[in-house]
Every structure is written in structure tokens, then in C-alpha cells.
């Protein structure tokens, strides 16, 4: 190596550089980590992480991001084991065989404070095995929410819960959130009402513990369309969502949202093949004033991607 390396100024400079960059990383990464660690999961965080599952971005368990090994959120009206009616319906989060555990079960310390303690003791989440069929609930002690492994505490299994449920009681939220990420919805729709305004239209901004265990958070940064964090509270019409996803201009003539008709797949809910070319031609005719009404929008099939995405959007309360 040449003489330049031993130049005294550069030795001092290299150390100062390490100090500057290290100090900066200490302040911007190490110190905030204490704040993040102290965040205690809220009800919202538990619902989001249990309904979306371990990961809704790219991961090795879902390499094509089809969203097929994700949890299902199911409305349970009667105890699926004993058949006794429940005092009030509860949401169960059904993890079939092969669905990776949610983050709070995988790493309970992410839940934070009393939520972690209660989930371990009363919720018995330590007994859940990653990828094994499990049913989770969100239970409360006082106002503190915790994750309950209903398979351990009450013997509920995914088969029991799913066999008693009607299709309209099942939300494909994990698949829906995966599609939200894959289809790039978050390039325009933020999931972050701002703290300084947005209260009236888009609803309350999220709080510190509202994201524990969620990945990716997909806040979005470039809002070209309404914020969706509480969209299900503003608009709970499945029919409106269906029309809007198929062709947004059917319900909002000035919308610049792309058509997501391709998420319907080949067949509609009645098993008929969807003739996209004809639909588009009819729509163009309608647009040109040659038809009085736009063509009928097909109802998405139960296992279509459109259904999953609509399920998830409506779940954003």
C-alpha cells in the first residue's frame, strides 16, 4: 500500500467519520428503539396482525403473493365445539395448517407490557405451534386486550369454526391485504390519516401501539386518492365496492383509479365465464351515449381475488 494511507490527517479523519456516523445512528436508531419497544399493542394492532397474518409483503411462504396461505377472519355466533349460542358473536382468526403464526405469537415481546403478559398466561399463546392449525381470539381483561389461543383454551379447531360458518361470515383479510400490497393500491391510497387535519373525513389518526406486529405497514406517502385507514366506517356497501373496483368510473365519473376488473378472474359467482371484451365494448358504447345503462358488473366468485380485496377494504373500520 502506498504512503498515502499513513497520512496522519486521514487517520484522524477516519476516526471522526466513524464517530459522526456512529453518533448519528445512535441517536436516530438506538434511542428511538426504546420508544418503539415500549409501545403496547392496542385492539386495532391485534386485529390487524391477526387478520392479515405474519407478512403481507413478499415472503418465502407466499413467493408469488397469491395470498393463499393467509388467515381467515370468521364471525362466530355459537361455540363451534359445544354448539351453545354465544352471548354475543365474536371474531375468530382462523389459521389453517401451513399458515405462519402471527407476529405476536411468534415474538410475544412485540405485544408489549400487559398485553404480552396476558396473552402468555390467560391466552396461552405459548402452546401454539408455527404452521399448526389454530384459532385465535382477541379477549379482554378489563380494557386490556390480549390474544387468546382458542385451540388451547377451548379446543376450537379451524375445521369446527369453518364448518359452522356461512360464507358471508368469512373475511379473506390476509389475502386482501396481500393484494393491496401486490397491486400497488398504496401508491395512491394512504393508510395514515394525518395528525393535524383529516379528522372529519378520514377519521382518527393512528396511535403509537396501533401497528405492533403489522408488516408491511404500507402507510403510503403520495396521496392521490382518499385515505383508507377507516374506509369501512365511511362506506360499508359491498355492492358499491364491487362496482368501484370493476370500473371506478361507474360510480365516480371523475375518478382516476385504474380498473381492477382483472381481479375477478375467469368466472363470476354463478360460474359463468366473464366476457371482458364484450363488457368493455358495452361500456364504451354507454360512454359514447349509445346505451342508456352501463353493462351489469359480474358478482365476483367466492374464491376470487376481487372478493378478498373487497373483504379487506370493508374490514378497515
Amino acid at each position, binding site marked *: 500500500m502506498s504512503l498515502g494511507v499513513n497520512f496522519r490527517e486521514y487517520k484522524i479523519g477516519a476516526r471522526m467519520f466513524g464517530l459522526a456516523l456512529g453518533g448519528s445512528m445512535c*441517536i436516530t436508531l438506538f434511542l428511538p428503539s426504546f420508544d418503539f419497544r415500549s409501545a403496547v399493542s392496542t385492539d386495532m394492532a391485534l386485529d390487524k396482525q391477526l387478520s392479515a397474518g405474519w407478512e403481507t409483503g413478499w415472503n418465502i411462504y407466499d413467493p408469488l403473493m397469491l395470498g393463499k396461505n393467509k388467515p381467515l377472519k370468521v364471525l362466530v355466533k355459537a361455540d363451534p365445539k359445544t354448539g351453545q349460542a354465544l352471548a354475543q358473536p365474536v371474531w375468530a382468526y382462523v389459521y389453517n395448517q401451513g399458515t405462519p403464526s402471527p407476529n405476536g405469537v411468534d415474538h410475544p415481546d412485540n405485544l408489549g407490557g400487559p398485553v404480552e403478559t396476558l396473552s402468555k398466561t390467560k391466552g396461552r399463546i405459548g402452546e401454539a405451534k408455527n404452521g399448526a392449525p389454530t384459532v385465535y381470539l382477541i379477549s379482554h381483561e378489563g380494557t386490556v386486550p390480549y390474544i387468546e389461543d382458542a385451540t388451547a383454551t377451548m379446543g376450537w379447531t379451524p375445521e369446527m369454526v369453518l364448518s359452522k360458518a356461512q360464507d358471508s361470515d368469512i373475511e379473506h383479510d390476509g389475502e386482501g391485504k396481500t393484494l393491496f400490497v401486490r397491486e400497488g393500491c398504496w401508491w395512491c391510497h394512504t393508510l395514515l390519516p394525518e395528525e393535524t387535519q383529516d379528522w372529519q373525513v378520514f377519521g382518527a389518526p393512528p396511535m403509537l401501539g396501533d401497528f405492533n406486529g403489522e408488516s408491511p405497514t404500507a402507510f403510503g406517502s403520495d396521496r392521490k386518492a382518499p385515505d383508507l385507514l377507516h374506509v369501512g366506517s365511511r362506506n360499508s356497501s359491498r355492492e358499491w365496492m364491487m362496482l368501484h373496483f370493476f370500473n371506478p368510473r361507474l360510480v365516480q365519473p371523475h375518478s*382516476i383509479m385504474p380498473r381492477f376488473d382483472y381481479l375477478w378472474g375467469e368466472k363470476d359467482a354463478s360460474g359463468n365465464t366473464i366476457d371482458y371484451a364484450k363488457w368493455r365494448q358495452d361500456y364504451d358504447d354507454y360512454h359514447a351515449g349509445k346505451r342508456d345503462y352501463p353493462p351489469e358488473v359480474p358478482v365476483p366468485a367466492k374464491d376470487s381475488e376481487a372478493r378478498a380485496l373487497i373483504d379487506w377494504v370493508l374490514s378497515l373500520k
Partner: protein
Amino acid sequence: MLKYLFAKNEDIPAGSAAIYFGFSAIVWFVIGTGLGSFNAAKLAFPDFVTGSEYFAFGHMRQVHVHAVIFGWISMAFAMAMMYITPALGNTRLWSEKLGIWNAFLWNVGLSLGLFLLWAGLTSGREYSDFIWPIDLYIAAFIALPLAVNVWMTIVTRRTQGIYTTNWFFAAGTFMVIIVFLTGNLPEWFHLTGLTEAYLTWWFAHNVLGLWITPVAAAIAYYTIPKVTGNPLYSHRIGHLHFWSVVVFYSTPAAHHLMSAPLPEWLKSFASVEGVLILVPAIAFVSNLLLTMQGKWNMFVENLEVRFTITGVLMAIPLNMQGGFQQTRAINWYIHGTGWIVAHAHLALLGFSTFLEAAAVYLGLQSLMKRKLYSLALGNMHFWMLLIGFSIYWISMTIAGLIQGAGKIYEVPYIDVVIAEHPYMIARWIGGTLVFMSNVIWLYNMWMTARAGTVVPAGRMPHELAYER
């Protein structure tokens, strides 16, 4: 170029890696801006190319962003490093062969990563959108070989001191690796929640602050003294620039999430540090403009100087925006609006692109020993790029202010969309001009290689008169 992949290092002509990087960068620039123009058309006319998953806006937007950042900007940086670092050390590039492999693997990995993004396979994290196997590839085969080549060229230099440009190159290649590995921690170790969100923006901030901004500036520190013949105005102001970048630009990441529930102390700290980026900005701009003393005629007559100084001048509005728009007083109004999109394009397409374009023009002519084929086409490139960018920037800034007003008065969102429509059309026209200017540049550079006048040994390209 591919024939050199398996040649002996000493048999590869000096400058080959830089030429390979240079042409790759221009091609990615054409692709990236073409995608940008296409995406802008979809925002203006949503039923333009409809009904296919692969031409949906949500599948194309991130491909545009990563084609220009990883393809155009970063490969132009690599190009500049491959020829400027040895030139300033009075030596050869440490390994021409490593440079050729670096450029080859860069093109292969980037093509693969963009293809996967296009298909929708993404981490869902803005600016770290690539899935983690691609991130690993980028760290191992793109960032690290580049850094090693730059560091070893500086270590084996034949000068005693290290010139300003090379401090920035050495530090930039180091910092981008640290930032890239840290910023992707959520993907390596599946960190979730607010940690994931914060690290996403920690990465996005620092990759701009510690890679794109300082390396672009470093290029200007070479181009202006080299072409004008004036020595750099002040070595000490260069020091101020370097150290204030490392200290001030590495700290304000949290200001990207001013409306998120981050700790308040972190947001306040970031906001104050964010204003301090004016220190390196003013140091840089004043140093370069003062270096031009007595040579301002070259701002008109010489293409490389014109590109560079235009970029330097654009750093003024860029940093005035950047320093203040992130404070609470202003951020609440413009956060998440088109104003930010305009600002991001001022940084990458305005400031940074103009500096890199100058380096690629100068480097390719010097290394190929060919005078630029056509000044007329070069002028067309410059003016179409500048006018196209200006239309884009002005229209998006106005659109952002409209959006901000709509936001604070909580106007029904669709009324904001309607009000923005004319500016979306203007943005598309501006972006299309930028794309077309780059097609002209690619043709001009290709013809320079094929038919440019030979630059005699011992001469610099700018010493020869333009012929067309």
C-alpha cells in the same frame, strides 16, 4: 464489453468499465423516463391502456422509480467513479475486470429486480421495494464490488493527498452499504409495526442524503475545475460541506413521518436537523459558483459546464424547499401532496441528473477519445430536459398546493382530483419531453462512439471545437 468478462485484467483497456457503465446508465435513463411518461399518462387518462394487470399503474410506478435510481443515477455514479477516482489519484482503476463484472451483474440484477417488481412481487416498503433476495444481490454484487474498486483505487493512488471528490466517493460508497443493510433490517429479520415504517423512511432519507446528494456534488467538484481550468475555490469550504453532510444529513429521517405517531422528541430533533442541511447546501453551491469566476462564458459555450452549473443552481430551490418543508409549520400543509413529488423530481431529475449527465458527457468523450458527435443534438438534449423538467416541476408544485388546500379544508377528495386534472396533463407533457430528450442523447452518444472526431493524445475533448 462482454468479451472482457473473461480477459486478463491487464489486457482490458483503461476506461472500459466506465464506458460500459456510462452507456448502461443512459439506456436505463431512457427506459426509466419512458416508464415515467407512461405512468403520467395513466394519471391524466386512467383508461389509457387498461384491463391488464401488467400495465396497471400500481405495477408500473415502482419500476419507474427503481429504473431511474438504480439504473440511471447510481450507474452514472459508478461510471463517474470508474474514471474520476483513478484520474484524481494519478493511477489506473484498481481492477478494470471487477468494474466490467460489476456493470454486467448490475444490469442483470436490476433487470431481474425490476421484472419482479413489475409482476407485483414487492416488500411493500417504499424505496426498499425490492424483495430481500434482490436486496442481498444488490449488496453483494452491486454495492460492494463498486466500493472495493473505489477504495482500492484511492489506497493505491500515486498522489499524497486525496482530492475532495474522492473523499465523497469513498465515504458515499461506504455509507450506502451501511444504509442499505440497516434500512432493510425489517426484511432481513422481519421487524414489524412502527419499527418497519420508521426504518423504511430512515433508508429512504439516508440513501438520498448519504448517497445521491453527496456523490452528485462530488462529481461537480471534479467537472467544473477540470473543464474550466480554475482550481476549486476553497478546499476548506469543501471540508465544511463533507462534514456537515455526514453530521446533519444523516439525522433527520423522522421528518418523513411527521404525521405518524413517532416519538415527539424524535420528530422535533429531526426537524431541527433538517433545517441544518442548508449548511452543506450553501457550502456546496457557493464553492462551485465561486470556482466559476472568470469563466462564466463557459456556462454558455460548454455543454458540460452548462449542465453542471444548471444542476448546481437547482440545488438552491431544492435545499430551500428541503430545509423548510419538513418543519411542522409547513409540513402539515404539503405532506403527502404533489408538492413532494415535485420536490423529489427537483432532487433527482433536476439537481442530481444534470450533474451526472455532465459527468457522463465528459467521461465518455474523454475515455473514447471522441469529440461529441453533435452540439446541436446536445443543446436539444439540454433544453428539452430543462423545459420538460420545469413543466413537470411547476405543474406538480401547483397541483400539490391545490391538494394541500383541499386537505386542510377537508374538501371532498374527488374535487381535488378534478382540480388537479389539467396539471396531470401538463406533468405528462413535461415527462414525455424528458423521455424524448434522452432518446436524442442516446443517439448522440452512440454516434459519438461511431463517428465522433478523434481527440488527439494529450488533449481534452473540450479543447476541440464542436463540428456539428
